[in-house]
Structure formats: structure tokens, C-alpha cells
């Protein structure tokens, strides 16, 4: 019996900050002290606080260590594991109060969170099916197969009010009932783990931290809709997720939880993993299925919808990873329990990948209806460096932004749509006063131009033209007429593109235009970028009264654009200046200014 468990995060974030080396060091150090029979090391999935990685939590005390280095390991083993003294300097500072060490759950970051989809992430060893089972894993499947009819399962999902977490927000129970209603010799379940939204990593974390819950949920979906085979489509850039998912599938087969005659019910189900090459459009459901079929990932027109003709032209239910992750809990705890969380039309919780200008970047799961202010100021710990919050981008390249004035909007599907934004899959990028909104729109448009599959003209050519117009604006060469044309083109692309990629591509432009039109106008009329981002509209200069002639800037300037003798006032030659900003960083006297 182990007296202590040391959980080390093995999510992608912490793995890239070297948590595997920490695990190795821990194991060898524990062996050196002869503690291998007493202390167990467990590699988990993401805890959510990726910015503080590598993360380690020691039980039974529940001590939360952050930013642990390999060099710290001997001290942790000697002091904490052997002698029972916490290594205070490594404790996450939010857990350390004057008198006491708080548990992680009491910190600002976790307090307002409510973990349903992420409940096992950072809690269990994802490569050990028994740890999943210890937390009621596969109980929901057993309940479905032994006690419920497929129609009853669908009714529970319907009553729970669960809506698709992949972006569209379509009611999940309804979707399942469509597939169930279609007779066919073969039906499929597909899990969308393509997660193409830049900056989003919710689905990756679920697969890394709790892969069995996806296996279980897809099997339940198969039972409910009459499908016997499932595919998980994961992008190849997620090697840890792929590996753990494959281990989970193998273990489930060994335990008879996948395969023939599961729970002696006569129901057969098996799962396959397919790797995507990382094209954004392959996250669109019809393109995804085309890709699984072995063809080039291009969307097909809908209808026919997947429930009628999906994968291999057979009735198919396609859901997002996070959508599935909610299913076992809904079956076990009931529709009412799930429906008690959230707002009137958006039930349950939503996972967000918090990024950008925010203190606690990472993964958060909050009840629907939480306000953006709570997410940013409380959970996220606010904006660093005393800067002012400007806007948050949700929904990635298909979404829009929420400006500071609407920070108290409760976040749910319908409220976000009402303000011209969208929930999206859960990317949440925080921007402060130093972000230029035209530049942000340009960033996302660059992405869609690259990712447009090219099948239809409005999207292929339209997004390119849109990007050119934005380039013109940020170069200070646009007129007010161009602004009208920009809006017209946005609406044209939205109305005429074949798939969701094109139909939503103009959203970042439209949303920033709606809330930050004055910034567009400043670029066009005043030839100024108010946030000081767009290079073409900036000039660097040296204020004569502040310059001491120290020559520091002139020596650093890579373009040789700064002239002046020692102890004399320097000047910047704007023709040569490449606007890299090195002089501004170098000057100790604040003499260099950017305008």
C-alpha cells in the first residue's frame, strides 16, 4: 500500500516544459531513498494551469507544486516525501496564505470552476483503465446496456439540454434521435477531435487526461443510435492524445468493454483512430468524414446531413470531444442534475482555453452563464502589467469579439450570438490596450486564407480580397469607400460560401468593425494605429531634450538608421528605419518615442 501518491502532469504543456524528465528524476530519487514501496508516481493529464507547468501534486497532503525543475526533485523527495516538510518555495503562491496552506480547490483559479468534462483530468492516470473505473468509469455504459433502451438513453440526453460543444451548439439528443430514426445495415459514430481553432486545446486535454470517457461515451452513442463502429478523428499534431487514446481502446477491448457482446447485452461496438493532417477545414463535419474515407478533405453540400448519409454514405452521428465527455456523467447523475447548471437554453458547463494577455493562461471549465468579467478578473487573475482590458476573442477564426463594455454578459450560446459573437469551440483570447483590432482581424483572416480548401469561389477568392483590403487599411492607403466595400464583401462571402469555414470567415472583421469602427477610421483618415501596432503607420523619433548622446541605440540599431556623435543628440533616419523597436527598448533615458 502506497502511503503517498505524487501526481505529475503529463499533458502537452507540462511535457514540453520537461515533466517527463521530472518523473524520471523522481523515480530514481525515490528508489535511492528506498521509498519505492511507499510512494507512487502517477503521470496524469492537464491540470489546467499550464502556464505554471511543470505541475506536481503530492497526496495525501494535496500540496501543489508549480514550475518544478529537475534540480528541485531531490529536495522534494528528501524534505517532503521522506521528512514530511513541505517545500514552501515551490508551492503555488495562491495556495500559500499567512497561516496555512490552502487546497488547490480554494484558489481563485479553481474556486469558480465546475469540472464535468474535465473531472478526471489531472486526477487519474489516463493510461490505467482501473483508475478510470475507480471514478465510476464505464458505469454509465453498464447502466445503458443493462437497464435502459436506446430510446431512453436518447431521452435522457435530450432532457439534459446538452448542446454540441464543437461550435454550432446543436442539441445533442436531437442529433442522436435523427440517426437512430434512420434504418441502415451499418451506422457510425464519429468523434471530432480535429480542434483546428488556433490557441484551443480543450479537446486535446480531455483526450490526454481522460481518454476512456470518450471511449465510453462513443459506445453509449453507438448503442443509442444503432451504430456498431466508431471513428475518432484526431490531428496528428496531438501525439500524446493519440497514444493515450490508443492505449485506452486496447485496454477497453481487453476488459470486454469494446468488442462483441458487451455486458452480455448482444451489443457489439468497436473503435478506430484516424489521424488528420491538421487542415482547419477537416474539422467541418462533412470534410472530416470525406477525409476518414481516404479522400481529400473537402466539404460536401448538406443536405444530405450526416444523420442520413454520413461516413461511407451511412447514417452517422458526429460529435465533438467535449460533447462526448459530458455524456457518462449525464447518464449516471441524470438529466436534471445536468440541466440544473447553466442558463435557460445553455445547460451544463463549458471548457475554455484561456490565452493572450491574462495572468493565468490555461484551461478552465465554468458553468454556462458565468460572465466574462468573472473569467478574466477572478479565474484568470486579471491582465498583467497593469494594462487595461480591451476585448476577448471567442470562437477563433469563425468568431468575434466581446468588448470591455459587454464584459458582464453571461456567457452562453444565445447571448454571444445576440451580440454578434459566437461561443465557438472554446478558444478565449484576451486582448489589452496594446492590441490593434484591425491587426487581430487580419491575423484571423490570414489564417482562413491559408486554410480555405479552395472548393468554392466566394471563400477562396473572397477571403483573399478581404485580406488585401485589410492590408491596405493597415498600410494607411485605404479610403472610407474601401470600408464600405469591405463590409459588402464580408456579407457576400457569408451568404455564398459552401461550408462553415467560408460562411464564418468574415466574422472577425464584422465583429471588430461593429465594436471598434473608430480604430478602422483612425487607420484610414488619420493614418494612425491607435494601439501602435501597425508598423507602416508608426514612426520612431528621438526627443532632443532627453537624449544624452550615449550612443547605445545607434550601436544596437540593426539598420544603421541612427546617426549622431557621442554626447550629442541623435536622430533616426526614417528612410532607413525598419521599425523594429530595438532603440526604444535600449534607451535608458526614455528619449525614443513611437508615434
Amino acid at each position, binding site marked *: 500500500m502506497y502511503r503517498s501518491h505524487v501526481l505529475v502532469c503529463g499533458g502537452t504543456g507540462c511535457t514540453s516544459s520537461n515533466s517527463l524528465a521530472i518523473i524520471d528524476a523522481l523515480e530514481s530519487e525515490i528508489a535511492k531513498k528506498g521509498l519505492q514501496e511507499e510512494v507512487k508516481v502517477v503521470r496524469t493529464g492537464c491540470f489546467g494551469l499550464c502556464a505554471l507547468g511543470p505541475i506536481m501534486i503530492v497526496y495525501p497532503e494535496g500540496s501543489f507544486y508549480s514550475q518544478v525543475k529537475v534540480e528541485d526533485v531531490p529536495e522534494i523527495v528528501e524534505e517532503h516525501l521522506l521528512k514530511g516538510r513541505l517545500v514552501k518555495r515551490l508551492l503555488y503562491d495562491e495556495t500559500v496564505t499567512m497561516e496555512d496552506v490552502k487546497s488547490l480547490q480554494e484558489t481563485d483559479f479553481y474556486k469558480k470552476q465546475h469540472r464535468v468534462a474535465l473531472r478526471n483530468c489531472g486526477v487519474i492516470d489516463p493510461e490505467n483503465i482501473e483508475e478510470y473505473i475507480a471514478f465510476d468509469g464505464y458505469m454509465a455504459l453498464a447502466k445503458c446496456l443493462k437497464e435502459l433502451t436506446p430510446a431512453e438513453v436518447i431521452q435522457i440526453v435530450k432532457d439534459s439540454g446538452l448542446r454540441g460543444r464543437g461550435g454550432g451548439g446543436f442539441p445533442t439528443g436531437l442529433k442522436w434521435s435523427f440517426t437512430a430514426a434512420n434504418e441502415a445495415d451499418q451506422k457510425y459514430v464519429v468523434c471530432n477531435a480535429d480542434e483546428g481553432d488556433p490557441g484551443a486545446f480543450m479537446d486535446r486535454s480531455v483526450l490526454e487526461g481522460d481518454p476512456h470517457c470518450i471511449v465510453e461515451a462513443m459506445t453509449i452513442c453507438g448503442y443509442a443510435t444503432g451504430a456498431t463502429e466508431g471513428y475518432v478523428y484526431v490531428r496528428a499534431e496531438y501525439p500524446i492524445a493519440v497514444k493515450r487514446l490508443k492505449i485506452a481502446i486496447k485496454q477497453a477491448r481487453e*476488459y470486454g468493454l469494446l468488442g462483441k457482446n458487451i455486458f452480455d447485452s448482444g451489443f457489439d461496438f468497436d473503435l478506430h483512430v484516424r489521424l488528420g493532417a491538421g487542415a482547419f477545414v477537416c474539422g467541418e463535419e462533412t470534410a472530416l468524414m470525406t477525409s476518414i474515407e481516404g479522400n481529400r478533405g473537402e466539404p460536401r453540400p448538406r443536405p444530405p446531413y450526416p444523420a442520413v448519409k454520413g461516413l461511407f454514405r451511412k447514417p452517422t452521428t458526429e460529435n465533438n470531444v467535449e460533447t462526448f465527455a459530458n455524456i457518462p456523467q449525464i447518464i449516471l447523475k441524470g438529466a436534471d442534475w445536468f440541466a440544473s447548471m447553466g442558463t435557460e437554453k445553455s445547460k451544463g458547463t463549458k471548457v475554455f482555453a484561456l490565452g493572450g494577455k491574462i495572468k493565468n493562461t490555461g484551461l478552465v471549465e465554468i458553468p454556462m452563464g458565468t460572465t466574462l468579467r468573472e473569467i478574466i478578473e477572478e479565474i484568470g487573475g486579471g491582465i498583467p502589467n497593469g494594462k487595461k482590458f480591451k476585448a476577448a476573442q471567442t470562437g477563433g477564426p469563425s468568431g468575434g469579439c466581446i468588448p470591455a463594455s459587454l464584459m458582464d454578459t453571461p456567457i452562453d450560446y444565445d447571448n454571444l450570438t445576440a451580440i454578434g459573437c459566437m461561443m465557438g469551440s472554446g478558444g478565449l483570447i484576451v486582448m489589452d490596450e496594446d492590441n490593434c483590432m484591425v491587426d487581430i482581424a487580419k491575423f484571423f483572416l490570414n489564417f482562413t486564407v491559408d486554410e480555405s480548401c479552395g472548393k468554392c469561389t466566394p471563400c477562396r477568392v473572397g477571403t483573399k480580397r478581404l485580406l488585401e483590403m485589410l492590408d491596405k487599411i493597415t498600410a494607411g492607403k485605404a479610403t472610407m469607400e474601401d470600408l464600405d466595400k469591405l463590409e459588402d464583401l464580408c456579407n457576400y462571402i457569408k451568404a455564398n460560401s459552401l461550408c462553415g469555414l467560408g460562411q464564418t470567415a468574415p466574422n472577425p472583421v464584422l465583429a471588430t468593425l461593429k465594436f471598434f469602427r473608430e480604430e478602422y477610421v483612425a487607420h484610414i483618415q488619420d493614418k494612425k494605429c491607435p494601439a501602435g501596432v501597425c508598423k507602416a503607420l508608426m514612426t520612431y523619433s528621438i526627443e532632443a531634450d532627453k537624449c544624452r548622446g550615449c550612443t547605445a541605440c545607434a550601436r544596437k540599431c540593426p539598420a544603421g538608421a541612427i546617426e549622431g556623435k557621442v554626447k550629442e543628440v541623435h536622430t533616426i533616419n526614417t528612410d532607413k528605419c525598419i521599425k523594429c523597436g530595438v532603440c526604444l527598448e535600449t534607451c535608458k533615458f526614455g528619449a525614443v518615442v513611437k508615434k
Partner: protein
Amino acid sequence: MKTIEELMAIRENAKKKMTVREDTGDEATRIVVGMATCGIAAGARPVLNAFVDEIAKRDLKGVTVSQTGCIGMCQYEPIVEVLEPGKEKVTYVKMTAEKAVKVVNDHIVNGNPIVDFTVGAATK
């Protein structure tokens, strides 16, 4: 897998191996073993492990075993404190693995602190 019972058996078994990770909150009985250098030298580790094993063997719920640094009475090590919610702390001194098993039986399970092992008896 054929029956829910099979799954439940795996669950119970797996759960036992994971009790140390439970957040037992303020409701739990805590057994704290002094494990500073003095404690370890005096043989605190077998005591700690005896508590862990005995509690696992009896499948006791809501009891955590943890360590602490020097309690400050080195001559009485190994020292063990038992903290039950709403009751006064009991401090056992000069503990051994055998005594630990007895403490689990008499004190934790049956609710009778063993006065002979306590610091009060030792300082008399």
C-alpha cells in the same frame, strides 16, 4: 465484461488503491507522524507504514495518514498525533509498528485512546 458486479468489483479494488488522493476535507480523522531527522532516526518510517497498511487492510474510510516535520520533543520520537474533528488532539510517543496497529484498533476503530502510549503517561 459480462455483469455490473464484475465492474463494481474492479471499481472497489481500484478505489482502495487511490484513497490517499481523496480530498477528505475537515471531516477526516488525521494521523500525523513526525518525520524529521530525529523521528526517522528513532524509527518513524515503519510506524508510518504500519498505519498506512493497517488502515488499508481494514478499509477504513475518512482517515488520512500524513507526515509532518519535527514536533519538538525529540527525546520522545517517534511521535504520532491523532486529530479527530471535534475532539482533543491525542499525542502518542515512542511509537513502534506494533503500537501503531493497536492504536488503529483501540483508538481509531473503537474510539478508546490508549492512555499508556500518550505523552501524558511518558512525562509522569
